[in-house]
């Protein structure tokens, strides 16, 4: 039966936490070297057949912390991994992001309670941050920072005096009717923030034609609403409401979402949120809706249907010896004139969060901001160095032995990349390890030369029309060495390049939040006439997600 045996947390070098759940698993000091012995990149699932007992080692890495969990019996691997991710999320929720070794070390008591609650002797029991808030004591400053911390027993005493709805909530203290929502939530300022984050995964063929283009979207919500709110979030896509079901593919939802509602009316997410920050839903959108993947084989994907803020082009084997390659980065013209998926007036109370609440966010929603443009070009192993690294803009970094070139392109004013029509370019030539060796001309005796040298020279049509053998051979040799050099350099060429960037205020899929309504009749505990502040934020990121091949 699935069981988590232990959880170890390491910073770069040392174990900073060892929590044993059951039996006697291998200790952290044994496992850590075994983990490090595995060649990088280390998968999160490593089977160690030679330990006693044979152990499966699960690991995840979060902001420089390594989480290890050994398991010695048959389990569901995803259960362990999901649990580790939940541990990270919960710790971050309680200790504040980012999760750092120092934070864990100074809050061992909180961490101990959390780990004890989340997994009881190996069985995962309670991973909802809200439910954990009810049972875990947060002392001192952390508690103050996090604001509302329910006191034990408080819910008991309040049940008699409070309103009908509160009574409903506190019937079964301390665990509420909804496992994901804490009882008796009170906030002085009620706020609701929706964050739509999409990450791009685009592959471009050498011709520039997109092979696949998808976005993976996530809806994160920060709900700080008193009582027991019942919310309705309505999404829409550019292709219209009727089509939303097909546009937002393969959605997954937080358990608080009423799935039946989504099934009946796609695009409407009805839910009672947990208190605080959580991920509401995930989805994906195919940006090439009528293309390859759909089985409509005849219609080749229409390149113009894919609109990206930047475009990438790689050309290789340039120059006389084919040792140069060039990467060009374009700003797509259509990007500036993009239709922006938010309009405060239409949304009705769903004001843009920009400007008022977080000025640091910068810019207005009408002008998406392109930031952090970085082009990465993987360099093959045989390359010794790159000579002549030139860029028309920005800075490219490469030191001999690196496996990639990183080229940061500055964005001026957030929107425009460069004034020139050609975009920005990076060009350089590769220097291979064996470049200096003079290649000898291969085996002295060649199968090709059978005709020339062999005893059976016979006149035939082929020979007679050809140039005299000797001359042909010289040219042949010459051409061959050239070809050889080009061929050699060709193996040193990068095979692709990818670009990372972030665009604030724009979603590649065009999904937008139409409205976020509090269903007043179904909600409880929210005072009369309280209008929560609502905000929505769009962000498209590409973490090396746009990949151009050559």
């Amino acid at each position, binding site marked *: 039966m699935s069981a988590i045996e232990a959880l170890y947390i390491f910073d770069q070098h040392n174990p900073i936490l060892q929590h044993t759940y059951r039996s006697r698993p291998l200790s952290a000091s044994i496992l850590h070297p075994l983990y490090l012995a595995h060649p990088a990149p280390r998968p999160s699932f490593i089977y160690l057949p030679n330990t006693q007992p044979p152990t499966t080692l699960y690991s995840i890495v979060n902001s420089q912390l390594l989480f290890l969990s050994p398991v010695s019996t048959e389990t569901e691997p995803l259960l362990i991994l999901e649990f580790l991710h939940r541990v990270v999320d919960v710790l971050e929720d309680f200790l504040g992001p980012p999760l*750092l070794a120092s934070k864990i070390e100074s809050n061992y008591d909180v961490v101990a309670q959390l780990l004890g609650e989340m997994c009881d002797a190996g069985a995962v029991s309670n991973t909802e941050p809200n439910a954990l808030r009810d049972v875990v004591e947060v002392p001192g400053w952390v508690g103050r920072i996090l604001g509302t911390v329910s006191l034990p027993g408080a819910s008991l005493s309040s049940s008699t005096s409070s309103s009908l709805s509160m009574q409903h909530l506190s019937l079964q203290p301390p*665990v509420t009717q909804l496992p994901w929502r804490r009882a008796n939530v009170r906030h002085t300022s009620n706020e609701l923030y929706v964050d739509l984050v999409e990450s791009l995964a685009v592959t471009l063929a050498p011709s520039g034609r997109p092979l696949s283009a998808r976005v993976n979207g996530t809806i994160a919500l920060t709900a700080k609403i008193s009582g027991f709110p019942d919310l309705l979030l309505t999404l829409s896509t550019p292709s219209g409401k009727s089509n939303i079901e097909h546009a937002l593919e393969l959605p*997954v939802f937080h358990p608080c979402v009423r799935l039946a509602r989504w099934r009946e009316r796609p695009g409407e997410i009805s839910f009672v949120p947990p208190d605080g920050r959580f991920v509401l839903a995930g989805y994906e959108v195919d940006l090439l809706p009528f293309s390859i993947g759909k089985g409509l084989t005849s219609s080749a994907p229409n390149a113009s249907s894919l609109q990206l803020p930047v475009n990438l082009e790689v050309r290789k084997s340039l120059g006389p010896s084919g040792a140069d390659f060039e990467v060009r980065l374009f700003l797509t013209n259509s990007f500036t004139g993009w239709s922006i998926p938010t309009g405060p007036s239409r949304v009705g109370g769903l004001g843009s969060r920009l400007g008022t609440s977080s000025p640091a966010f910068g810019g207005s929603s009408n002008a998406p901001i392109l930031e952090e443009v970085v082009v990465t070009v993987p360099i093959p192993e045989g390359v010794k160095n790159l000579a002549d690294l030139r860029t028309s803009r920005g800075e490219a970094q490469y030191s001999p032995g690196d496996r990639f070139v990183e080229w940061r392109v500055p964005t001026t004013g957030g929107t425009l990349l460069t004034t020139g029509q050609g975009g920005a370019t990076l060009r350089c030539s590769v220097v291979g390890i064996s470049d200096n060796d003079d290649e000898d001309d291969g085996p002295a005796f060649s199968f090709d030369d059978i005709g020339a040298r062999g005893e059976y020279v016979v006149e035939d049509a*082929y020979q007679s029309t050809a140039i005299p053998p000797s001359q042909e051979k010289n040219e042949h040799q010459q051409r061959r060495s050239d070809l050889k050099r080009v061929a050699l350099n060709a193996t040193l060429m990068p095979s692709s390049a990818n670009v990372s960037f972030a665009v604030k205020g724009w979603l590649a899929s065009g999904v937008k939040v139409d409205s976020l309504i509090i269903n007043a009749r179904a909600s409880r505990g929210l005072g009369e006439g309280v209008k929560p502040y609502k905000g929505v934020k769009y962000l498209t990121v590409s973490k090396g997600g746009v990949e151009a091949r050559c």
Partner: protein
Amino acid sequence: MESLSKISSLLETARDLTLEAAQSAGSASRSFRRDASKNISVAQLKRLLDSRNDRDILEGLRKVISMMYRSQPCLPFFSSVVKNVASPNIEIKKLVYIYLLHHAEAEPDLALLSINTIQKSLTDQNPQVRAMALKVMSGIRVPVISQIVSLAIKRGCADMSPYVRKAAALAIPKCYRLDPKTLPQLIESLSVLFGDRQYYVVGAAVTAFMEICPERMDLVHSHYRGLIRKLVDMDEWGQLATLKLMTVYARKCFPRRTSRIRKEGSIGFYGDEDEGAEEGREVQLLDPDLELLLKACKPLLQSRNSAVIVAVARCYYYLGTPEYIDIAVGPLISLLRTPQDIQHIALYNIAAVCLTRPETFVKYATHFLIRITDPPYIWRLKLEILAIIFPYCGPHMNGVILSELEHFSRGSDKDLVRESVRAIGRCAQSDPRASTRCLRLLLNQISSSDGNLAAESLTVIRHLIQQNPLSHTKTVVRLAKNLDTATNPQARASIIWLVGEFAGIDGENNVAADVLRILAKGFSDESGAAKLQIVLLAAKVYAHYLNQAQAVPSVSEATAPPPLAVSLGDHGGFSEPGLRDGQFGQKWEESALHRETIPLLWNYVLLLARYDTSYDLRDRARLYKSLLANPKSTQLATLILLAPKPVPHTPSPSEWRKGFTLGSTSLIVAEDGGLSGISGYEPLPDWVREGEEPDRSLRNEHAVRAEYTGKKEVPAGDRLDSAVREGGKGAHEQGSSWNSTNDPAPASKSKSLDDWLAEGVEEADRDGGNDEEEDEEEDEEDDEEDDDDESDETSEEELEESDDADEHDNLVRQ
């Protein structure tokens, strides 16, 4: 679903985070803190723990816990810490409990002293305290107290707070591990919890069940429908346990009714392509109860938890019809958006499903395109899946996949190149239409300067050629030309072997002898592998020669075929500029010459081999020599050397993982874990045979059958209960299928008659209210949704409360 921390980090400005991280990374501060905690002396710490001031005690406890996590010795404080167990301060209590859980085993005697206090907490007013006490008591690994723990669990099962009941459920396996002799009592408690109305209590109970007595399916029957109804609302971990239980349960309790018809169905199922087996599928009957399970799983496919999605897929894969498997495919694909670690595991499972239902994955083909950021363990699986679905794709997608593979076969990563080439080979093998194109792709790679790539390509080409030798004679000629350039020993050996295999085709036009002639000249420079093949080639050529000589004892020179230039000339399409065809053939037009030369060559090669340094080579040469020397054994030699070779088939690497259950660790570990999987792995049971399954009426709720009670030792209390149940509810539910019983699961815990009556009223209430929404999943929010029901609902809640209160009284009285 992406984890929250990942999304947050995307939203936060990266700069702030790194700044903070950098600050904290200043190791100075940390080492200072570490020192600080060390600096506190044992005496000081003890003084803190012994203090009367709560604040001091807390301070001391925190220090001890920190030491505990840093693996510093903290046993010396045992008595000082445990003394505080009686503290009314809940904060102190929690920390003491944590300490106890970690260290009680080392000091069992001292730990026993605290048991009394903990036992007192079991009756505390605050349910949280009760639950904690139960948890600690079961968690202390002191076997002496097993009976007390089992009693406490029994009481916890009847607690009015679901929180305590959940703790009781979680305590069951702990108690079992403490002392397996308590099993009967524990099972009794468990069957009470199975009927609990709270979703998360049931989830925990199922988890406990799977741990202590997964084979006791008889306990599940009467709760089967109730569990399935609650499935949607359980927490993810409960869902996982329940899905696991149900998959086994279904195999054991629902015979595959259509086993005879299923065979037809399964042809269409595994033999794919043939969609005509439709009728076979239609006949496949699902037990209504099984269908209930499959339908209840459907909403879980939108779970945020990847493990749940895979568990549902497993359920469909082993229990459902192909249609059900197809439903699970999309959600499985959605796991590719998750973090890499989960993706990795998900891909193994996808590959396993893909082997059975490749055509369903076709529309998601682009999801498996490799990204340059993918680590090896991801792209390996993606390549494999691409090759599996290749034959089912349309021509356009085929093109995309092949150019994808071609792209990566030219990369610089050796492993990636190798795997891509192999994938091309698998594509060609599975889809004859594409094999020409694949072959052309591979032939281009042979002349590559990368020996690794060339060797790998050749191996694959060899396999392809062997599958259809007759259509590839010209390819062999072309390969022979590559002997010029190919340097990789393995590649050369492969080519030579192929030439030898084809030595007999096309009679005298064959190039084999000529190739042998040239190879013989460079014999001494060849690698060991190539030498072996050269000798073999020589033997084959000579054997052919002997056969020919026997067959046509008087070959007239006049009838010798015309020069071969014609036949070789027409494969110009394959050859590259600069290579001239026809060269091989030209010399062999004169048969007389031919006849003289081959024995000469054969003797020459034998001579070369005879003085080679390799024993193996010399031995083989000797073997071939004596085989071929005697004309009587020529037939034998022919059999040995020229026997048709079996067609090689390279299966997908996942092919033989197939035996392992979807979603298990063994599926992923596969070969390293041994044939029977890693320890603790149990394959799913086979479908129960028709007629051996338990009676389906056992699953009727409220109808606890005599047979069931008779077989197992059910305590008298329960029997009384069931009698009450039958008396009170029998009429209400008589003979009805589960659909009409929309009420929550029957609470089979010990209740007084009054309770039963009260519940009956309440249930009637509820039935009336919710009838329309019968088939929808029963969210607990259903109630909140329709405001009209609000008054009803509150009264219901009150009822429930009084219900619980009564029950509590009951307990007290007991």
